[in-house]
């Protein structure tokens, strides 16, 4: 079974530049999560979707970050104008419904903002 696929694996930007991260969840998984993992910290939830609908984006810095999942499958997370404080690994995870179902994570995109 294919896992969660993320691209790119690495990104290096100057402050003010834009970047997009792409996630392909496990086939059939209706729920998709984006987490931000700063260096030496645990992942922190940014946004999650059920199918194409945003369920909770309250932790997403809305002035610069956006996330979409237009067909309820793949998802894109975009940073409009990156800051040094955005340096982190961005993890995508998917699951099939339910509060007791396991989250499966991708390997992440490691972002460095100079």
């Amino acid at each position, binding site marked *: 079974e294919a896992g*969660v696929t993320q691209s790119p694996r690495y990104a290096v930007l100057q402050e003010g530049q834009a970047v997009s991260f792409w996630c392909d969840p496990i086939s059939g998984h209706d*729920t998709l999560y984006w987490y931000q993992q700063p260096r030496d910290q*645990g*992942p922190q939830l940014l946004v999650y979707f059920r199918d194409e609908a945003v369920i*909770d984006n309250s932790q997403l810095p809305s002035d610069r970050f956006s996330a979409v999942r237009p067909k309820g499958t793949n998802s894109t997370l975009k940073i409009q104008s990156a800051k040094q404080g955005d340096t982190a690994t961005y993890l995508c995870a998917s699951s099939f419904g339910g*509060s*007791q179902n*396991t989250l499966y*994570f*991708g390997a992440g995109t490691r972002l460095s903002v100079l």
Partner: protein
Amino acid sequence: GDSVTQTEGLVTLTKGLPVMLNCTYQTTYSPFLFWYVQHLNEAPKLLLKSSTDNKRTEHQGFYATLHKSSSSFHLQKSSVQLSDSALYFCALSDLSGSFNKLTFGAGTRLAVCP
């Protein structure tokens, strides 16, 4: 809100020794606890999960028991191997919601030496 505390940032051990990684949590809801393991440059993977009070759960030689009285879910192994070197995260969800929205601890890095 929910929170998870992992007190050790780094644990260094010699192969063959036992290990316990601490995890305590705070929530006002019925807790569901997880341990994820993340090897270098890989995705976090589920190691253990439990929502049953005072019942030991085991996987791949690791085990943990959820103790609601002390809000703890410590991870243990009787004899660590070199391949156990990784970052270990404790995470919390609650059974009241419709989604598995995880709150992670800061993580404990386990380094096993020959």
